[in-house]
């Protein structure tokens, strides 16, 4: 039945060469994946791209660089090394051996968690498929494709779990992951945030900073899972996710840097006409991407997440570094909450049902590091404006704050007040139009668009003017 040279075509550390179950599943899935990639992957035709390919999980193996034609990218299947003594760190099963198989009792929940995670990975590729047309430099174009192939690989990672551990049902779910498409009317992606096209590169940098960071924290909770293969898969994915966030962090860095340069050069804050993104527009983009990413953490009080925790399916960020009893049956947490009359309060909840907020708090702390970074660029340039993260209740569509209007500085206002001020908080049509006007492609090696500064260093020691992408 084998028509694929698995080890060569699909680098892996799951013994694919001798696993008939996986081979059979992939034989049907892999062509469908490639079809999907052709149809829904990057729209810009290229000959090849300077990409990092993971061929192993170790220090040596995870970063192999070379020019690769995109469809021939070797999407691999990697799990972090197994710790044979790993114990479950939390919940009712705390202290027991980690599960090497899916317990039937938890099949439905585990499958759901994996499918939801898996659904986001190809979604972002779909959302970003047209960005190549307006890349500010070959360096950025390459980074976009690197993120894309790795999101593709993360899809493979989730599909691997479905194929290897969930039987016939798992194969069907894996196929569905390719049939749902971002923004599709009939079969959209599961989470709302993944059905919006990423319209421009500023949004792409913001997305990789804020939204991919949500992915990092979700993976972090699954890394704690009692289901060991899921845990090991997520651990390895986190390594790649860190790179995506670096693209976002340095991307926003470079936009801020360029804005500052233009401000200094022209001695004005109004740099829109000079080919840059003004500071207030940057703040509005941050407001938008941060607030919609907070929605991805789900409801403020969730019995699902409590059940997942108790069952051992999904832990907390850095679970084992926490110093409590890891069961939380009698623990309480205080979360920000809004009363029906619009009063902001602190509410005490059983800790188990407040775990979404626990994770969200970790995320918020992490996001504020980026803001500090960008403020440092402003400070170094002697500009006394600062960026800030909006209030947690700002522009929310999920959870307690949805249905209320809260300003970035945390004031509850009525709809009329909101409507009058929203142009100060969120990108306006004019802002977006301006950003869009800046999105002129620059494909010449060593050159870069007007609105963003070049990177300090290139990829894998290569210079900025390296020919990272050969266009078709």
């Amino acid at each position: 039945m084998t028509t694929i040279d698995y080890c060569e075509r699909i680098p892996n550390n799951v013994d694919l060469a001798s696993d008939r179950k996986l081979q059979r599943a992939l034989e049907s899935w892999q062509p469908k994946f490639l079809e999907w990639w052709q149809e829904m992957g990057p729209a810009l035709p290229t000959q090849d791209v300077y990409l990092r390919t993971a061929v192993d999980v170790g220090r040596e193996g995870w970063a192999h660089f070379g020019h690769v034609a995109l469809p021939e990218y070797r999407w691999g299947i990697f799990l972090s090394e197994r710790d044979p003594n790993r114990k479950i760190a939390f919940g009712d099963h705390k202290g027991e051996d980690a599960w090497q198989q899916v317990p039937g009792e938890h099949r439905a929940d585990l499958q759901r968690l994996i499918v939801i995670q898996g659904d986001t990975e190809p979604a972002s590729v779909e959302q970003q498929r047209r960005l190549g047309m307006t890349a500010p430099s070959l360096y950025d174009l390459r980074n976009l494709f690197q993120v894309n192939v790795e999101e593709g690989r993360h899809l493979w990672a989730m599909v691997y779990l479905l194929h290897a551990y969930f039987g016939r049902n798992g194969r069907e779910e894996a196929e569905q992951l390719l049939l749902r498409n971002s923004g599709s009317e009939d079969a959209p992606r599961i989470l709302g945030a993944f059905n919006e096209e990423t319209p421009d590169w500023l949004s792409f940098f913001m997305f990789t900073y804020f939204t991919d960071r949500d992915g990092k924290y979700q993976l972090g909770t699954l890394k704690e899972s009692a289901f060991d293969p899921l845990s090991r898969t997520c651990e390895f994915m986190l390594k790649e996710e860190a790179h995506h966030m670096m693209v976002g962090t340095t991307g926003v860095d470079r936009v801020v840097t360029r804005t500052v340069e233009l401000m200094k050069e022209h001695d004005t804050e109004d740099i829109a006409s000079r080919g840059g993104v003004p500071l207030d527009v940057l703040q509005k983009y941050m407001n938008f991407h941060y607030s919609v990413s907070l929605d991805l953490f789900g409801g403020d009080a969730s019995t699902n997440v409590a059940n997942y925790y108790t069952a051992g399916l999904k832990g907390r960020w850095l679970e084992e570094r926490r110093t409590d009893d890891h069961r939380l049956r009698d623990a309480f947490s205080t979360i920000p909450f809004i009363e029906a009359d619009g009063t902001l309060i602190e509410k005490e909840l059983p800790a188990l049902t407040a775990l979404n907020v626990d994770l969200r708090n970790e995320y918020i702390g992490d996001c504020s590091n980026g803001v500090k970074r960008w403020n440092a660029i402003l400070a170094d340039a002697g500009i006394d404006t600062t960026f800030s993260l909006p209030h947690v209740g700002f522009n929310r569509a999920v959870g307690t704050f949805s249905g209320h209007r809260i300003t970035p500085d945390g004031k509850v206002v009525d709809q009329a007040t909101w409507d009058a001020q929203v142009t100060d908080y969120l990108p306006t049509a004019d802002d977006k139009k301006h950003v869009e006007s800046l999105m002129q492609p620059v494909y010449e090696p060593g050159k870069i668009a007007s609105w963003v500064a070049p990177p300090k260093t290139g990829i894998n020691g290569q210079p900025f003017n390296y020919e990272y992408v050969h266009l078709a």
Partner: protein
Amino acid sequence: MSDTATPPPVVSFDASPDSYRHLALKFDGPIATIELRTAEDGGLVPGYELKLNSYDLGVDIELHDAIQRLRFEHPEVRTVVVTGGLDKVFCAGANIRMLAQSGHPWKVNFCKFTNETRNGIEDATENSGQTYIAAVNGTAAGGGYELALACEEILLIDDGSSAVSLPEVPLLAVLPGTGGLTRVVDKRKVRKDRADVFATKSEGFRGQTAVDWKLVDASIPRSRFAEAVHERALELAERSHRPADARGIALTPLHREVTADGLEYQHVSVKIDRDAGQVDITVRGPVDAPPADVAAIHAQGADFYPMAVSRELDDAILRLRTNELEAGTWVIRAGGDAAKVLAYSDLVRANGDDWYVNEIGQFYKRVLKRLDVTSRSLIALVEPGSCFAGPLLELLLACDRQYMLDGTFTDAEDADSQTAPTLIVTEVNFGAFPMSNGLTRLQSRFYGDDEALAAVGAEKGNLIDASAAEELGLITYALDDIDWEDDVRIALEERASMSPDALTGMEANHRFVGPETMESKIFARLTAWQNWIFIRPNAVGPEGALRKYGTGQKAVFDRKRV
């Protein structure tokens, strides 16, 4: 209440006339008499006395044994008279103190077995030419009258005091739920308002009123009672087609090895995994070729494969149902040579007019019905070497789900396991073993889809492989060897994690599609109503009627209608 009481004993369903404590079997030509005279100190469990011919599971086990033996060991018996062996008492029904002290599962199991035994009485009357009449020679109350209701005719002694009654509702706040309510209206066609009066009138009815209300068939003066019963029994015997000169088939003791975690019979193996809550039941096909003819079948007696396997399976079901309450999933396999299964089946079909061969078919039908009403998740696994063919295919069809291996296991070594499993549908799957709803299991499976049923019918005698079986709808999933292990394991584990009560209710709903019969109603209403009432405080709470009965105190009811 008493789920915390002393754990129930391990129950054996073995019985034999020479050790009956509660019954006497008497024979007089074509007439047999079952005389009930329960030993007061003979309760199966300590804590109650079987006064006034009241019964418990132990009494029912003897009654069940007697009915079976009359069918198989006594071809000459054409009428069976059920009567009381105590003065002025026919039967006072289920023992109240026993009910009051029993946990819920015990009560439910007990009632289910009682129902099955009474259905067996009606089945003997209908299909074996062995007509049961109740000679109610004293008070028949509650379950006592229900026992009489299972008989074809009820002859009540007219002594100025003996009455038939269903006092459960007024006295005990429970139902005459083992067929009583249903048979009064469905079988005896008592008008519903009269049935209402009857079932709420604790002292019941006697004499001519009982006849007028169709509660009994005749009211006979004390002096003429024995004679009239005898005459009627002889008249009914005339109608029977049972052979006069045949020799019975001795129901020899079952060969059964009971181990800590299993039961081993000649043709049936039972493995109990209490941690997983799972029982693996393997029914093996016949090893030897079938005997040449009817004479040879009779010569083999109870060892004749179809008879032997039915007895073993029946015993295994009964024991597991009563003794292994927490093993909620039964995984059923059939292993052996399908060709031999069919050879036996053909032999049985060709000799259907022989009384013994007929009895075997009727018996296997009842065993399958027992499986149908078993409150366990039933999962059939069809693996290489399996023999789900003809009569044994019914086991697969009785299951809630069927998983079939598509192809073989790659690590197969012996010849048997190198052949992909197949199913075989035969004529017997189209009528020989109806369910309690009056439909065959295939009709139930394809209810409302005659085309699908016809498609299966067109495959009679053919080897049906997994993909064809899946296409035909005979199985739930065809899985190849790569998927088999995980899919089956996950399905079983997932099943075991769900609420046993919800599963029981769900399964019973799915199993019995389509029409109701009196028989199916008896089970369904027992389950839906009696078992609900059995956990309600009005019956079993500290102030409930069942608990207060016999204490001189009045029950206190929660008056809310639900």
